[in-house]
């Protein structure tokens, strides 16, 4: 099981890490442009330490919170940055004129801080949990170069349409430590999907952190009946730039391995968006790519305060599958796209959380900080 990593892979790995750092830098610029402020934008969380001396009447919900902050620099990923950090790979053209999009993925063992002060021995894609949010366009050829630097066999099982050989299950695309495999298939169908490791035991491999978003944007040329909607979904178009897009992976961690989760979150860190609300520019519509990957609990949900949204289950349609709702549920691996706007609202903090209150109180809760248009 504990095979030594091949030296050539190791060298490539360090190059890859350099590349990742560069990509991260780009992501910071992008997110700043979108209004995700890195600066200490602390919500109404009461400062820890002084809390103990508060008298009983002051015990508001502000005290119901994890104590401290997660060091994102040590983790190497930041939940707020991950909201807008898309991995679009590298693009080239195939002889037949089609676009080939190549992604580089690795599996690594890594201890990450999943809540303030709590270290979790995670299995990661590209050193982060959730793994990179892959994004492609419908009809492109996708090539995912996967190298396993971890201590166990891993795979990438994509939720999409592909050959059995590319399914990432035992016998097809399972990668031993130190080995490499290239998954190749067409990007279809368009929608909000996910990938995860499909090594056995499946539940443990997913719960340890091996999952991520896999979004295929619709090709407007193939969707003549909904060109405008398709263009607004397609990354890189001016129409798409008019939206504030966020990718949220609802995950949870069983830190004591008793088959019950101790911490719930979106993008790994419990209470991250309570302590640092997500900046939303009032006039711009919001689109959330929401993916549920929790283990041990059958369903998860998303409830938006003081607002309603349209929902596209699995994102494979260009018309909503649910209109004007403020709560949707997702079973394990279910996902979808939420669209809403705060254009008519007054600025302020708007909460979002699952309506399984247990999950909320164990860390999966956040705030949208709706502000007037940036000057």
């Amino acid at each position, binding site marked *: 099981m504990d095979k030594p990593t091949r030296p050539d892979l190791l060298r490539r790995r360090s190059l890859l890490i350099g590349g990742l750092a560069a990509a991260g830098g780009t992501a910071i610029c992008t997110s700043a442009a979108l209004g995700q402020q890195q600066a200490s934008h602390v919500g109404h969380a009461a400062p820890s330490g*002084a*809390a*103990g*001396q508060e008298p009983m009447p002051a015990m508001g919900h502000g005290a119901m919170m994890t*104590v401290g902050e997660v060091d994102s620099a040590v983790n190497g990923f930041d939940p707020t940055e991950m909201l807008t950090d898309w991995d679009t790979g590298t693009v080239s053209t195939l002889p037949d004129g089609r676009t080939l999009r190549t992604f580089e993925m690795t599996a690594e063992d890594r201890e990450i801080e999943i809540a303030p002060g709590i270290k979790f021995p995670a299995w990661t894609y590209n050193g982060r949990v959730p793994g990179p949010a892959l994004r492609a366009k419908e009809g492109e050829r996708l090539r995912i170069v996967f190298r396993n630097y971890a201590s166990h066999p891993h795979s990438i099982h994509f939720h999409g349409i592909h050959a059995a050989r590319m399914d990432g299950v035992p016998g097809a695309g399972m990668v031993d430590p130190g080995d490499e495999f290239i998954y190749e298939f067409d990007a279809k169908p368009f929608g909000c999907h996910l990938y995860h490791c499909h090594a056995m035991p499946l539940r443990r491999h997913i719960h340890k952190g091996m999952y991520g978003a896999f979004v295929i944007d619709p090709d407007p040329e193939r969707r003549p009946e909904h060109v405008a909607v398709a263009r607004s979904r397609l990354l890189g178009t001016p129409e798409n730039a008019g939206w504030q897009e966020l990718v949220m992976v609802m995950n949870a961690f069983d830190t004591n391995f008793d088959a019950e989760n*101790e911490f719930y979150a979106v993008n790994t860190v419990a209470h991250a968006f309570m302590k640092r609300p997500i900046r939303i520019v009032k006039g711009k519509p919001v689109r959330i790519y929401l993916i549920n990957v929790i283990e041990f609990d059958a369903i998860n949900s998303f409830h938006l305060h003081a607002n309603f949204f349209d929902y596209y289950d699995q994102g494979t349609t260009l018309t909503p599958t649910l209109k004007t709702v403020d709560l949707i549920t997702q079973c394990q691996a279910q996902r979808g796209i939420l669209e809403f706007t705060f254009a008519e609202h007054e600025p302020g903090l708007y909460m979002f959380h699952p309506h399984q209150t247990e999950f909320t109180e164990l860390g999966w809760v956040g705030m949208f900080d709706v502000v007037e248009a940036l000057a």
Partner: protein
Amino acid sequence: MNEMPRAAIRAAKTNLVWLALPLIVFGIAVAWLVSTDPLSGFRNGAPPVENLTFERTVLDDSGLSLLVRAGGSEPMTVAQVQVDDAYWQFAQDPPGPIARGGAAWLKLPFPWMLGEAHAVKVVTNTGATFAHDIAVAVPTPQATTGQLRLQALVGIIVGIVPVAVGLMFYPVLRGVGREGMAFLLSLTIGLLGFLLVDASGEALELAGEAAAIFQGPVMVVLAALSSFLLLMAIGRRSGAPTGLALSTYIALGIGLHNLGEGLAIGAAFAAGSAGLGTFLVLGFALHNVTEGIGIAAPILKKRPPFSVFVGLTLLAGSPAVIGMWLGSLAASAQWSALALAIGAGAILQVIVEVGAYLMRQSERRSDVFLTPPVLAGLAAGAAFMYATAALVKI
């Protein structure tokens, strides 16, 4: 003249060398272990062993406070605290990692609900969790005058009053004959036997709740044996105790037992796991009445002054008051267990001494235990205690 001291000095020096040698060898072994770390091969990346014991729970106007003791292989760090499956902010005093064997207070501004149950879960930095149930949330007794007076009242009712009542049978009992005397003494042994078994069981149970570092069961057995041997040695300085001395030892044994009982009741009371209703308090009082009779038995043929009765009553009964105070305000499981164990040792000493006294009173020596009055007394004492204990066991 000088030869002897010089030889003695040389012998002393030689002894010193032989004393120092094993210590030096051990020191070298420790230094070698620490400096070369030959055990590093055992380090397999496994997280450290962690253990956390909840020693005290305080519920008051500022929320919830927990005294926790760490018992891990390395200092432990409390990262987060859940109450009823929700994370709450907390302050730790003193802050930082808790050393092995060390304790710290965790204070949460948690709005606990009167009369309801709460479940606390501490999450350490490794993600391990340690759970603690608050069975019934009630305000923890504070060291106020009113509270102390109330607890003293309970202590007096369950400790002093029954002993006094038992001693008040003294004039009636004075008239008993030889067989009646044997019955009373064996009644005392029977009730003490019940207390010994009961106290030992309770001490071991409490010891199980204490942090592993205290090695509860071993501590209980050693403390009981030590107190037994110590009291035996003190009691036998000038022959086997009789009369007033024997009564005093019985009162002391019962007093030490009542101290442990008081601690346990007080701690249970503070933890909200026992509501001290009138029925329960009266049950304890009735349960303890025979103790007074037992104390009176050895002095039936003497005529001690009244002050002696007052002294014996206080010696046997007042530790219940002190136990109540300490138990509800300060004690942790290991201290209650220790007090009960010392009490158990004291009771064993008294059983031995009363048994010896009973044997000396009779020409049949050890066969006295097989005579009808003694058998009846033993059975009556144990049975009465067992039956009345049913009133107070929940």
